[in-house]
């Protein structure tokens, strides 16, 4: 046959050479829906001669006699080669390369066609998340993939989002998914050692990301074995494509403002309320009194004005990509400089990436990618990161508590200070605030700077058609510098002054070797077998100086002059993971699919005898639409696949490198070295085990115009590591021992629907909707222990109890405000109503039953489990419209069924000197008043939940957010082609532009405890969230 063709071809050639003259080919290029495609590159194969199609998709090209074929290419389309032998007109249809169900999905150590994936994998395209005003890509994933829940904790820049795939899957270890960048597992979390948080993932330029694939079930994740329980997120960065070199510039500038700030009392209202409180407390020798400012008017300070700002941000990215058939390259450089809503909270990133792939010959392919990034995060003490919620220097808290009738400056222009607190001015009370925020903003600083090199080199051999051998060596080197300065003049450094600098070095190498066998037997049996090995070595090394007692306030660097030198940030760790893994994919006639995954891990951090673990997953699918009996339905339901999977994977993330050992640490006894017992052995510690079960179906309607996927998942986790409390009299450091004891499950459903609602030549509308539900329940803790509480710094609001969702709220119930006397009514453990009056005549109790008799004091011992912080459903609704050259997109995200503990509100109703929310104006003042706000009594920190948490501050967390909205306009090609520009688009976009919620605080999407597993849903003194408007430009050359 071939010979015959060759002969024919030769004859034709001969024929055309006889003509021996140029000829003209005309034609038209259309998209797969028939609309003409302008600006498609039309090249003569094997030459650099070519043209592009006009606005109607037509082209005319004069070709030499030797020309045998034309190559049609356009960005985002599959390349098409068409023979022109014996033809003068050519009609070509180009298909988009990324059409959903034909797309390729990245799975562990390989790729698979979407339609052949039997596990649960959600994918997000890089284009969806590029050019958003965020610091790291993970913050953009919310609402874009079913079962993936992203909570941006607050408006602090570079704060790692809470990242959960199908719920929270651990108690004591990490619940953050494994992030793998181009095959190399990345560091995650906040690496900063100072107030300025630094999400490691921000070093990956979102514009460099080609795709994000999120593996969710046992089948998809088992190949990552011991690290897979929280899901695996595979980041694939961009590669060059052969064809013309393409240069793309993406830039945007944006403005961010806080939204939803609490409405606070102004100076006059403040004095009214607080003086009323003093009167009611029978305090006569103190008074809140106005002070005139330099302008002669009474001071009325809006403290928000000193703490929040409109932040200006910008980002610029240039990428160059292209290549010949054998070699492709991608080069990019990015710069972003972002200002947060909090003053002096800044983030900059400089990043460059080079990716090169070269096919040396039929057998050998090699390549690699390397990126260098530098990120600088700066922040004052925001009080918005875990562990600092009650910091008196926290700028989330300071504007809420500081009296509005004093100013940061005295009238002579100097700082208004009284010792290490803000000065009281004319007030005759002892205290009107904690620190004066202005000097600590002016004088203190905290900076984290990360320098990171991420890269890998690979070599791939295909000695025979059915065999692919691949070796890849990757590195991840992260140097994290921290710098902190606290002035001796005011705030945390008072009166000694402190400068601390630390350097933490994290290094990882990862060597992966795989062999893959692919073959089709008898045209029906497709078999693919992967075997591989992986080694990963991670080391950490940190040290630093913390110098105190500055000899002169002039010195603000750690290298300056101080009296006391101390060490800081000392750390040294190392771990090693050695693994073997394999996968078998089999299908019969693309109808029946079976996948087996397995992995064996050996991990150095586990104790002797427990280092090795085996993990596996199995899944199957049945494409019913390929069965004969389905043919009648085919016009409506063109595909329908049933899928199921089961397997067991592990979790070990967050376990210390040397947790297994019994250890003595160095210390000092005066000037002598000492060894102190500091860690009990955990010599039987193992991975937490996660048994994941999935069942569901995927379908396509009307020739895939509507596609969808539904799954039910259940994840049973056993051997949860828990710090079992020990009797303190045993004297064991930490009074607890780590053991694998607990169990819990997460279950729910996921539904994804994608629709090409309208697909006309001038107008298209694509919609994508997803929703997931989650039910979490703890089924077992340690023997004899069926609950434990988890603190949010100074306050404890969460309880984890067997039979309930983890981290449920644990508060004292109340029954409103007694209209007769304005007292808050509490409900004690026995169910009795007890009213509280903060100041009572001598000899009386503050606590009384409703009949006036003395009651025992109500306190945290009366707390009960009340409501769950875990959303029962969440998801997103993404809509993209195109009208001629305009495009419009709206991403809505939503969640609900959960409650949020509004601890900030408890503080905002505290009747010490703290300023209040304006809702206290509706306080009880006279018998018969029906109100939510008790009678104001100065000093009362009990009635509104400041002394111990109460149910009043537990609120519904449901919300719908317009997460993202954009309008773009692409310049017509007719204009662009004159300037040699391929594409140009201007857009304006908004983030967090609107929110519907019943929550009384700024935003129910909040997590003051960050990624904490067992203290979620707490809103305590965190700074607000930001609303960002950006304008941007994308240009391609």
């Amino acid at each position, binding site marked *: 046959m071939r010979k015959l063709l060759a002969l024919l071809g030769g004859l034709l050639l001969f024929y055309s050479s006889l003509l021996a003259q140029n000829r003209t080919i005309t034609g038209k290029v259309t998209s797969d829906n028939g609309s003409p495609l302008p600006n498609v590159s039309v090249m003569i194969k094997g030459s650099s001669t070519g043209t592009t199609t006009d606005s109607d998709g037509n082209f005319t090209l004069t070709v030499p006699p030797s020309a045998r074929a034309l190559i049609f290419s356009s960005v985002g389309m599959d390349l098409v080669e068409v023979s022109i032998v014996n033809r003068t007109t050519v009609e070509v249809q180009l298909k988009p390369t990324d059409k959903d169900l034909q797309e390729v999905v990245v799975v562990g150590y390989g790729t698979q066609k979407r339609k052949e994936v039997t596990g649960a994998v959600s994918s997000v395209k890089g284009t969806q998340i590029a050019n958003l005003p965020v610091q790291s890509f993970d913050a953009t994933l919310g609402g874009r993939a079913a079962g993936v829940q992203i909570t941006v904790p607050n408006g602090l820049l570079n704060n790692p989002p809470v990242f959960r795939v199908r719920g929270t899957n651990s108690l004591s270890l990490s619940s953050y998914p494994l992030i793998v960048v181009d095959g190399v597992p990345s560091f995650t979390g906040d690496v900063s050692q100072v107030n300025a948080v630094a999400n490691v993932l921000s070093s990956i330029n979102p514009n460099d990301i080609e795709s994000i694939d999120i593996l969710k079930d046992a089948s998809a994740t088992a190949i990552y074995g011991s690290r897979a329980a929280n899901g695996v997120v595979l980041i694939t960065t961009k590669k060059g494509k052969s064809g013309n070199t393409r240069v793309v510039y993406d830039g945007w500038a944006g403005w961010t403002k806080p939204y939803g700030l609490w409405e606070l009392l102004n100076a006059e209202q403040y004095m009214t309320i607080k003086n009323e409180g003093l009167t009611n407390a029978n305090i006569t020798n103190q008074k809140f009194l106005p002070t005139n400012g330099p302008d002669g008017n009474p001071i009325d300070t809006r403290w928000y004005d000193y703490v929040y700002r409109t932040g200006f941000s910008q980002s610029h990215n240039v990428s160059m990509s292209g290549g010949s058939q054998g070699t492709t390259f991608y080069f990019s450089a990015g710069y972003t400089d972002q200002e947060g809503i909090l003053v002096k909270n800044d983030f900059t990133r400089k990043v460059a990436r080079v990716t090169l792939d070269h096919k040396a010959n039929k057998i050998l392919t090699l390549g690699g990618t390397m990126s260098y990034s530098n990120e600088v995060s700066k922040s004052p003490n925001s009080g918005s990161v875990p562990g600092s919620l009650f910091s008196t220097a926290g700028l989330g808290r300071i504007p809420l508590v500081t009296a509005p009738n004093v100013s940061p400056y005295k009238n002579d222009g100097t700082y208004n200070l009284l010792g290490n607190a803000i000065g009281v001015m004319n007030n005759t009370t002892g205290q009107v605030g904690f620190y004066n925020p202005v000097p600590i903003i002016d004088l203190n600083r905290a900076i984290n700077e990360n320098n990171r090199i991420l890269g890998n080199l690979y070599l791939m051999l295909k000695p025979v058609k059915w065999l692919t051998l691949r070796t890849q060596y990757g590195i991840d080197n992260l140097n994290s510098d921290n710098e902190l300065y606290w002035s001796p003049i005011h705030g945390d450094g008072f009166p000694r002054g402190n400068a601390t600098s630390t350097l933490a070095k994290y290094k990882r190498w990862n060597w992966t070797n795989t062999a893959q066998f692919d073959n089709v037997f008898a045209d029906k049996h497709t078999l693919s077998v992967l075997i591989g090995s992986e080694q990963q070595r991670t080391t950490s090394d940190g040290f630093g100086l913390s110098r105190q007692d500055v000899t002169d306030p002039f010195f603000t660097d750690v290298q300056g002059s101080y*009296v006391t030198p101390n060490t800081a940030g000392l750390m040294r760790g190392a771990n090693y993971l*050695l693994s073997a893994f394999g996968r078998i994919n089999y299908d019969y006639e693309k109808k029946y699919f079976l996948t087996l995954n397995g992995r064996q891990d050996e991990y150095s951090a586990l104790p*002797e005898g427990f280092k090795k673990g085996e993990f596996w997953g199995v899944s199957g699918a049945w494409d019913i639409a390929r069965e004969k009996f389905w043919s009648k339905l085919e016009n409506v339901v063109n595909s329908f696949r049933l899928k199921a999977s089961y397997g067991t994977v592990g979790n070990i993330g967050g376990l210390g490198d040397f947790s297994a050992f019994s250890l*003595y640490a160095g210390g*000092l006894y005066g000037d002598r070295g*000492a060894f102190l*017992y500091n860690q009990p052995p955990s010599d039987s510690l193992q991975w937490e085990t996660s048994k994941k079960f999935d069942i569901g179906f995927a379908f396509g309607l009307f020739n895939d115009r509507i596609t969808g996927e539904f799954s039910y998942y259940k994840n049973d986790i056993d051997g949860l590591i828990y710090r079992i409390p020990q*009797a*303190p*009299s045993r004297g064991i450091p930490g009074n607890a021992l780590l053991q694998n004891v607990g169990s819990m499950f997460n279950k729910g459903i996921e539904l994804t629907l994608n629709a090409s609602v309208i697909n006309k030549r001038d107008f298209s509308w694509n919609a994508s909707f997803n929703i997931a539900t989650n039910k979490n329940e703890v089924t077992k803790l340690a023997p004899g222990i069926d609950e434990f509480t988890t603190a949010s710094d100074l306050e404890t609001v969460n309880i984890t109890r067997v039979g309930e969702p983890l981290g449920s709220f644990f508060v004292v119930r109340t029954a409103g405000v007694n209209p007769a006397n304005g007292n808050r009514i509490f409900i004690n453990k026995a169910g009795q109503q007890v009213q509280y009056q903060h100041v009572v005549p001598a000899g009386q109790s503050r606590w009384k039953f409703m009949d006036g008799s003395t009651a025992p004091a109500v306190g945290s011992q009366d707390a009960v489990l009340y409501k769950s912080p875990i959303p029962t459903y969440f998801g997103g609704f993404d809509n993209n419209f195109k009208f001629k050259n305009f495009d419009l997109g709206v991403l809505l995200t939503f969640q609900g069924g959960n409650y949020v503990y509004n601890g900030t509100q408890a503080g905002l109703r505290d009747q010490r000197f703290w300023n209040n929310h304006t809702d206290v104006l509706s306080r009880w003042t006279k018998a018969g008043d029906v109100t939510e706000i008790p009678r104001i009594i100065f000093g009362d920190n009990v009635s509104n939940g400041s002394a111990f948490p109460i149910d009043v501050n537990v609120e519904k967390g449901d919300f719908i957010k317009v997460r993202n909205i954009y309008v773009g306009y692409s310049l017509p090609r007719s204009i662009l082609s004159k300037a040699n520009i391929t594409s140009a688009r201007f857009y304006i976009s908004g983030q967090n532009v609107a929110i519907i919620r019943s929550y009384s605080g700024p935003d129910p999407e909040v997590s003051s405890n960050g990624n904490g597993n067992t203290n979620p849903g707490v809103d305590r003194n965190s700074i607000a969230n930001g609303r960002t408007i950006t304008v941007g430009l994308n240009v391609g050359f």
Partner: protein
Amino acid sequence: MKLKKIYILPVLMALTITSSCKRELLDASPTTQIIESEAFDTPERILGQINGLYASIKSGQYLGGRYIVYNEIRGDEFLNELTNGVTGLQTWNHTLGTNTAEVVNLWNAGYYAINSANLFLDGMQAKGNTVAGDALAKNYNGEARFIRGLVYFHLLQLYARPYWDGNGAKEGLPLRLTGNKGPGANDLKRSTVAEVYAQILSDLTFAEQNLPLNYSTAILNVTRAHRNTAIALKTRVYLAMQQYANVITEANKIVSASAPFTATTGVQHKLEADITNVFKSPYTTLESIFSMPFTANNLPGTQNALAHYFAPSATQFAVPAVGNGEYSIKTTGILADGGWKLTDKRRSFIWTHPTNSKRYLIKYQTGPAQTDNVPVIRYAEVLLNLAEALARNTNSVDARAVELLNAVRQRSDPTTTFTVASFPTVQDLISAILIERRIELIGEGFRSPDLLRLGLTIPGKGNVNAINPTQSEYIWPISAQELLNNKLMTPNP
């Protein structure tokens, strides 16, 4: 086919790679901490552990400051100035609960030190005694048991009823005498007060018999236990048990028969001529028997230092501003004692606020890094212990008791001389000795134990009511965590 052969080599290479893993890295062990099994391998490590035992009692939660502070402020000499719940407010006003931080943290710190001592004793027996050699082994075992006895004694002072209540029959502490590390017995019932005291005396007697007479340097003599340290502590222990004859027996081992009083064997303890030198660097006077050393690199920690509590703060216009003025001295208490003359050197420890006239204790005034040594035992106390025991034991105005009292008084106030005639009754002498203790030892953590051992009411202060010996607030509650996790533990009445 030829092509395939060429590529057999890389295939083999790949297989080699696969097998060339670094298995030894799976056995990663820490390089910055010492594994327990190797902790007794060298004499240096054992000495390091001894220092570690001292460091464990020196914790800011315990002898680094807070234990001393709690015992002062639950008495009646001090007034709380800042109403800060983190710095002892509830101890001061007797509103402690089982969950209060000081109740939980001191219990933890004390038992951590006890367990450290037990682990050390176990390790010595298993390996360390051989490594250290006989002489040092005796010394180290003595120190560990001294420390264990000291901690049990201190915990008894707050968490159990005084010895006089039922003659030690009341519930004491869970007696843990072997090391704890892995999973094991959480449940252990409380021994009686008498049983715990017996253990303390057994530990201290062992220490006395095994500790060296002295160490090579003055600083070691004041910061590590030697024979006289154990004896000095025994005088305090017997005093708490009201076994006065035993106090005399023990004290006589280290107090000469007549003035100038001095220890005749071991470290030659005596009173320092100028008391202020005792509280100044280098803190190595012969009067200091045992104290906790601090350096700028080894501080008591935030809100733990004695200076933080007692010394005034910068906002109170003090120079130097080393403290936080948490507690002022009640002006109507011991300050108002008519016999305490204004010229008494010990009045120099009292500082008067220039505007509000509040009084602050500046015995500890190193700053801004609060590196004052914390005095645990000093010779003046031993002399007063002996004086009181002599008076009570002889039930007479004992001449030597008067002489001992004089030694302490006249060192700071040469213009006052007590004679036997100064005290019409033995009660007058005892009262004078107790007053002398309040003057001499203020800010050193003696007020509460001195009230409790004698069954005296804790007087009221400010708006805080007095606590009589039958009230539950007379002693501290037991830590809630102990009650929760030790099923045999019983709460204090």
